[in-house]
């Protein structure tokens, strides 16, 4: 089969052209109306409804799979003795987040935000208002199934919580962590989400964040930063002399797998954020987003590899993995408007930021086990700031306003929650438990419990 464009046109969609050619009047009319309502004309409302819903579902399941990506990435970058715990947290996060977002989160974020002054919606369990009455489709103003929208928004909130678990790994107690996740996904995330995606005051102020460089990634980063400060570093990470003692991750293939899964999921994350697929314009936008997302990630990896080679004389795989994610987070605030070369630049700068931010954080003695703060917070800010470079509808003032207001809110709110947890239940395990590892100390179950291959379990 020949894959040239012209050939395709002659073969696959010949009919479409043929129809237009056969009936000039029809084509004329179509073109005429196309000016008025260009995108919708040739796609029936119900067909558009199916496409829009399908986009939420496909892109939603891709984002859902990011939960596995985070689990593997984090599971690969912690030490063996904390791996079961990291798995437990990650399956817990995805589950708890999903329940909380149903119970109050979705409505707190989207339900009548305008009526509440643009600060938050009316909380309460989510319920569908789907355009199906008595088994018949009655047309619908929204253009997609409510449940698909809920599903797509829900997987985003889970992502935010996953970011936190990587930063505070290897020293935090299980249940206080999960309680924080409950508050984050049920309350903190939805409130700031309401400001922008819920159509609240920040949206009115002209802030622009297409798929969540700030609303999802920075939020996770700020929440994690607050936790990391209150928790302190892992024992032994920073010497008394200020020297950094690296603690290499235990399983790099797992971390690599996790990164590839996240990369895959990001097509859903950014692509689905077009929020519609029922027109040529929308689907073309999604295709462009796929391309830009991939170019930014590729640039992030490339830059991280070249830069670690240049600075340290060796390519650092973990930095390359972080570079991919840094590129992805950077393009997330605006994956549609950039030209390919701009997408490469935006992602590449994300790669630079990651390589520089990781040691900087260590200098500040903020112990981030998986590099999530450089990736999600630093690149999240960068990506949001970069929006006006390519999107003429955005401006730097509003972008800074959004970054600062959301950052301040999330950091302070998270700090308070972490602080209350610290004062009440305590958030950090004892030194001895840390030495033994969370798996044995808190869960009584090792990730790789056998004593070597050859022997039986001891």
């Amino acid at each position, binding site marked *: 089969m020949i894959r040239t464009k012209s050939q395709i046109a002659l073969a696959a969609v010949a009919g479409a052209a043929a129809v237009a050619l056969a009936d000039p009047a029809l084509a004329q009319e179509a073109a005429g109306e196309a000016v008025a309502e260009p995108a919708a004309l040739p796609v029936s409302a119900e067909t558009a409804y199916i496409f829009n819903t399908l986009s939420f579902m496909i892109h939603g399941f891709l984002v859902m799979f990011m939960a596995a990506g985070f689990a593997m990435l984090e599971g690969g970058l912690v030490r063996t003795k904390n791996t079961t715990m990291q798995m437990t947290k990650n399956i817990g996060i995805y589950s708890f987040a999903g329940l909380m977002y149903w119970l109050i989160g979705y409505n707190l974020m989207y339900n009548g935000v305008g009526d509440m002054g643009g600060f938050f919606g009316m909380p309460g369990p989510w319920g569908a208002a789907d355009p199906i009455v008595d088994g018949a489709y009655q047309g619908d103003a929204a253009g997609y199934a409510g449940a698909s929208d809920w599903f797509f928004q829900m997987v985003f909130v889970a992502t935010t919580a996953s970011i936190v678990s990587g930063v505070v790994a290897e020293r935090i107690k299980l249940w206080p962590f999960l309680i924080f996740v409950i508050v984050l996904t049920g309350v903190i995330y939805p409130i700031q989400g309401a400001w922008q995606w819920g159509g609240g005051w920040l949206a009115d102020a002209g802030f622009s964040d297409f798929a969540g460089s700030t609303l999802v990634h920075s939020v996770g980063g700020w929440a994690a930063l607050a936790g990391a400060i209150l928790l302190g570093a892992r024992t032994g990470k920073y010497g008394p002399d200020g020297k950094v003692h690296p603690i290499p991750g235990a399983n790099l293939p797992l971390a690599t797998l996790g990164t590839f899964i996240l990369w895959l999921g990001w097509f859903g994350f950014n692509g689905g954020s077009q929020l519609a697929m029922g027109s040529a314009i929308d689907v073309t936008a999604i295709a462009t987003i796929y391309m830009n997302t991939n170019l930014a990630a590729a640039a992030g990896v490339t830059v991280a590899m070249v830069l670690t080679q240049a600075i340290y004389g060796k390519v650092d795989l973990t930095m390359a993995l972080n570079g991919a994610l840094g590129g992805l987070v950077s393009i997330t605030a605006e994956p549609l408007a950039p030209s390919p070369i701009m997408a490469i630049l935006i992602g590449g700068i994300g790669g630079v930021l990651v390589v520089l931010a990781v040691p900087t954080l260590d200098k500040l003695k903020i112990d981030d086990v998986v590099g999530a703060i450089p990736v999600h917070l630093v690149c999240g800010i960068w990506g949001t700031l970069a929006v006006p470079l390519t999107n003429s509808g955005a401006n730097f003032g509003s972008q800074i306003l959004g970054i600062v207001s959301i950052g301040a809110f999330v950091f302070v709110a998270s700090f308070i929650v972490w602080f209350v947890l610290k004062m009440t239940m305590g958030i950090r395990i004892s030194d001895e438990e840390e030495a033994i590892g969370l798996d044995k100390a808190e869960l009584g179950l090792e990730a790789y419990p056998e004593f*070597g291959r050859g022997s039986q379990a*001891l």
Partner: protein
Amino acid sequence: MKLVMAIIKPFKLDEVREALGALEIQGLTVSEVKGFGRQKGQTEIYRGAEYQVNFLPKVKIEIVVATDMVERVVEAITSAARTDKIGDGKIFVMDVEKAVRIRTGETDADAL
């Protein structure tokens, strides 16, 4: 005091430990090792090419005991670890001059 060092088949470890428990042995140390001996590994085929597996998984047990216990310890290990098949392993006895319990500083017999 003597060090009794036994190389046994991995799946016999539990039985050996129980047999030693019956002698009121309070401590021992185990390592995973590979053994080369009369027992030959199977000839394996990987992707069409034959190869000889020379090293077989074994477990090494090290127990320091008072000299008068040595006989009984060797006995206990021998009978618990035996399958009567080639590769059952060996026991070696060596002299230990000194023992210290780190926690208390106790030495020799008291340290075991």
